[in-house]
């Protein structure tokens, strides 16, 4: 981390606050926040982007910092540095995550994940997956949303936020939707 493209970048990329004559303390806080966002983004990418991504965490942090500073540098005047930085952080998180997830997907390959299966087993699994999708799609709208979110790995608090549902509604929709999904799969001869 020492040689550091970030150090070079942060020297060569001037903060908008430096140009606008902001007090040094404020500039330091701004730069500190950029660093915090850099660390946070690389940490998020390492957690969400998968095993391989965590190996490159320091590299990712460097790239994120440079890119954040570039985004800051493109902006002539920043009225609300906090929300501006958050938006820059969102953009950068999306970019880095998409890149890392694509890289991971092409490296592992979907077929490899199901390695060792016979063609018949693969076909059976595919047919079962189609049945699951059909049964989920047949659920009423809100239950379907709740079940899809649950099956995609989102927890109750996230489902609450996604749809603006109160806690009990989110929890009930997941529980009842999953029960209904299981019953529908059972009717089609698929047992857990």
């Amino acid at each position, binding site marked *: 981390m020492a040689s550091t493209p970030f150090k070079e970048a942060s020297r060569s990329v001037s903060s908008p606050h430096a140009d606008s004559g902001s007090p040094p303390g404020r500039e330091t806080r701004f730069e500190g*926040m950029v660093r915090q*966002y850099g660390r*946070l*983004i690389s*940490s*998020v*990418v390492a*957690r*969400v*982007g998968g095993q391989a991504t965590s190996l490159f965490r320091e590299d990712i942090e460097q790239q994120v910092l440079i890119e954040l500073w570039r985004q800051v540098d493109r902006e002539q005047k920043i009225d*609300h540095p*906090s*929300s501006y*930085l*958050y*938006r820059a*952080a*969102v*953009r950068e*998180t*999306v*970019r880095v*995550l*998409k890149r890392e*997830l*694509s890289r991971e*997907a092409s490296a592992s390959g979907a077929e490899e994940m199901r390695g060792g299966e016979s063609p018949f087993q693969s076909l059976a*699994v*595919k047919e*079962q*997956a189609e049945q*699951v999708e059909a049964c*989920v799609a047949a659920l009423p709208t809100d239950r379907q*949303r709740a079940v*899809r*979110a*649950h*099956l*995609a*790995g*989102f*927890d109750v*608090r*996230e489902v609450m*936020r*996604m749809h603006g549902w*109160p*806690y*009990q*509604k989110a*929890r*009930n*929709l*997941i*529980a*009842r939707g*999953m029960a209904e*999904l*299981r019953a529908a799969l059972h009717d089609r001869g698929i047992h*857990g």
Partner: protein
Amino acid sequence: MAEDERTLRSLYALRPDPAADHLGEDDWLALASGAAASSARERALDHVVRCGQCAHVYRGLSELEEGARAFDKGVPQAVGPAPLSALQTTRWGWWGGLAAAAALVWAIAQPRPALAPAPEATGSDLRGSQEARPALVEPMGPVARWPERLRWEPVAHAHAYRVRILDGEGDELWASPAIAETSIAWPAQIAPRPGRTYWQVTAYLGASDADSVPSVLASFDYQP
């Protein structure tokens, strides 16, 4: 982790991602900053729960929002997990909770690497376990006559039972007092209504509410 949960999630993950509708950078920005119109937000979220890659990105932004709040006061409340109030976590706890929901709540509270793992089978997964829990007898499934009584099998060492009845959307219609019997007359205040009605029995084994075992959530579908 409940085996059937794991299986279901694996099967769900095998569906092809709807690549054509991937969210663009501006869509993500609008979603994460709380600026998306409600219809656009709904469309985006419907895509997120169908698309593995976008689900990961959403999770990343959710974690970004949560993490940033520690040092940046300007972060909006848009995609990060909603806070739970004490009321939300204790109200149903008094009843022992729905078996399924209890498993969900417990499981999702566990640390996770990226996406939430499937709920653990803690003896109360959605299908029910082999533990001694009330086995519901009737009414179940399609019924042509409105039920007169609710019946269930006795649970060893249970000294009391409570019954809850919920409508098709999960709102509680009625709750019984603690009773010792293994059946109860249908409450007169709930008039016959076509469609699905849910019910659940919780068996109380000890002195505290913590020593309770909820049944699976059963339903009957009244089609006169």
